[in-house]
């Protein structure tokens, strides 16, 4: 295979953009720092001041030393995306580590990667005594990661539309351009998020006050839960997650936010333009509807068979919420994590694993295969079966609707099935490492591995502060690879090989 060795200018441009992203990670810590100042949380404030300073100094040094006007090419964008997410997680872990709630820097890195990739798995110790500012910071990581940290940062810094940002947008696992240029696309995404933020936070705050929280706490927790729900993250301010509130109305609002978060920004755009037919014609919404209804039914029947809950309301609140939480890639829990393995029988956890593996829509904040790939693979299969059944010279053309009517092409189906296969292999690989390093059963190891790769955050209890280091590193890699949908990481590995063995 011919590999061309990147020159100094190639590395310079990658470093320059990574510098911008790291500066952005520093800026993310300013709102929680201000909250720490307002609430006299001095230890947290010190952690944020150090974290912000470090990120901005490193980022700005890279930007100034490596400043270049050379355009960003496709390979640069992919490598920048992969490296940025890794380095951003490392930099974002600094204040978390300094909070004193993690026993090692690796644990803090686990949580920062989990936050940025909107996974929601956590090894943080004593969450219920974490400061407000540090809690806000964890949820801001969800928000920045969910919206797409590279695009969030670069569109803030870019004065006008730039075609170069497209490659970074794709590298971040987003390939749906809603508007003609990326900056307008990003602005639309912010607008949607801002409107949902106002409405969702208000509704959540009211529901929490009705549930008995004082207004100040209700508003603070509503903001945090909103960011975790709409960005399909899964962090919560309490160790008991959503079960803490014991409130059907809180769960109801969260369900709507999780569902909104799992819809693609393209679909939001069509709905906001007034094209409501798109909701019914879109291949992804059809696929998601089918899998969601089927898995909800399976999960609830599984819970009924296991005898875990016998009352219709309990069955509904536990089963439906958990399946929605899993399918949207959020990971909020309404019961103790150990219960999935001990009390939920076999069928219900299998439905949860299936929901986590499938995930939400492409170009949303959800993880997993994504409904579009499942839909395209199924369409491709049906087309192939039709080809076999029809005469050899018959021309079989399949179409699908995704914003416009499109012809199903071989390369589209191939790339969809390739990504699905890569996800499957990663799910299994993580489960194998889980089996090698812990005493967990295969189903439990698979549950946790799927949860990490699909950026969900539900746990059967394997993820804990005392988990083996190898498994922790594996889950960090899985969260990273799952969020970027593999291609950017392969490009980065290829780039590394080209650096070592490529021709000049």
């Amino acid at each position, binding site marked *: 295979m011919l590999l061309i060795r990147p020159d100094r200018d190639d590395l310079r441009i990658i470093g320059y953009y990574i510098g911008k992203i790291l500066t952005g990670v520093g800026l993310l810590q300013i709102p929680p720092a201000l909250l720490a100042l307002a609430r006299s949380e001095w230890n947290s404030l010190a952690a944020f001041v150090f974290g912000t300073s470090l990120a901005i100094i490193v980022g700005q040094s890279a930007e100034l030393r490596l400043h270049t006007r050379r355009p960003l090419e496709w390979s640069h964008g992919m490598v920048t995306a992969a490296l940025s997410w890794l380095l951003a997680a490392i930099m974002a872990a600094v204040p978390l580590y300094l909070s004193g709630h993690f026993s090692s820097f690796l644990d803090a890195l686990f949580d920062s990667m989990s936050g940025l990739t909107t996974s929601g798995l956590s090894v943080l110790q004593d969450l219920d005594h974490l400061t407000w500012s540090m809690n806000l910071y964890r949820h801001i990581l969800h928000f920045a990661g969910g919206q797409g940290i590279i695009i969030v940062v670069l569109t803030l810094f870019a004065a006008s539309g730039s075609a170069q940002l497209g490659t970074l947008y794709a590298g971040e696992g987003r390939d749906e351009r809603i508007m003609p240029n990326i900056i307008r696309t990003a602005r639309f995404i912010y607008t949607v998020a801002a409107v949902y933020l106002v409405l969702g936070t208000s509704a959540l705050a009211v529901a929490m006050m009705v549930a008995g929280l004082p207004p100040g706490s209700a508003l603070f927790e509503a903001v945090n839960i909103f960011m975790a729900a709409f960005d399909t993250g899964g962090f919560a301010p309490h160790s008991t997650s959503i079960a803490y509130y014991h409130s059907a109305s809180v769960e109801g609002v969260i369900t709507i936010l999780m*569902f909104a978060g799992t819809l693609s920004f393209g679909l939001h755009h069509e*709905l906001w333009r007034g094209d409501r037919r798109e909701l019914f014609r879109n291949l992804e919404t059809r696929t998601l509807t089918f899998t969601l209804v089927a898995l909800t039914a399976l999960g*609830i029947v599984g819970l009924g068979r296991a005898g875990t809950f016998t009352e219709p309301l309990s069955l509904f609140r536990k089963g439906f919420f958990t399946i929605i939480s899993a399918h949207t890639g959020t990971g909020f829990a309404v019961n103790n994590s150990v219960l999935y393995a001990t009390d939920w029988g076999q069928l219900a956890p299998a439905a949860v694993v299936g929901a986590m593996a499938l995930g939400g829509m492409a170009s949303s904040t959800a993880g997993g295969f994504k409904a579009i790939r499942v839909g395209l693979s199924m369409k491709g299969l049906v087309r192939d079966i039709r080809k076999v059944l029809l005469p050899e010279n018959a021309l079989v053309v399949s179409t699908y609707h995704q914003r416009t009517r499109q012809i199903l092409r071989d390369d589209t189906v191939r790339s969809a099935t390739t990504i699905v296969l890569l996800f499957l292999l990663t799910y299994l690989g993580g489960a194998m490492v889980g089996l090698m390093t812990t005493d967990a059963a295969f189903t439990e190891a698979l549950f946790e591995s799927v949860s990490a790769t699909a950026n969900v955050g539900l746990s059967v209890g394997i993820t804990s502060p005392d988990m083996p280091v190898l498994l922790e590193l594996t889950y960090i890699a899985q969260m990273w690879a799952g969020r970027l949908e593999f291609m950017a990481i392969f490009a980065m590995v290829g780039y590394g090989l080209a650096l070592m063995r490529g021709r000049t």
Partner: protein
Amino acid sequence: MKGVRRDVLLHSRRALGRRRPEAGNPFLEGLVGIAIVSAVAVGFGIVGFIAAALTALFF
């Protein structure tokens, strides 16, 4: 648009697969969009509750 034949415009619009942009208020359209998303989520909830009620009845 003056001087461009209407059938050519329609054809090119169809060829691009684009529909005429809505003339409504974008803010109101956004709120209607959110209401539709919420209604669909509630619809899924109703399906879930029916599944739970049937399960409780038969298991």
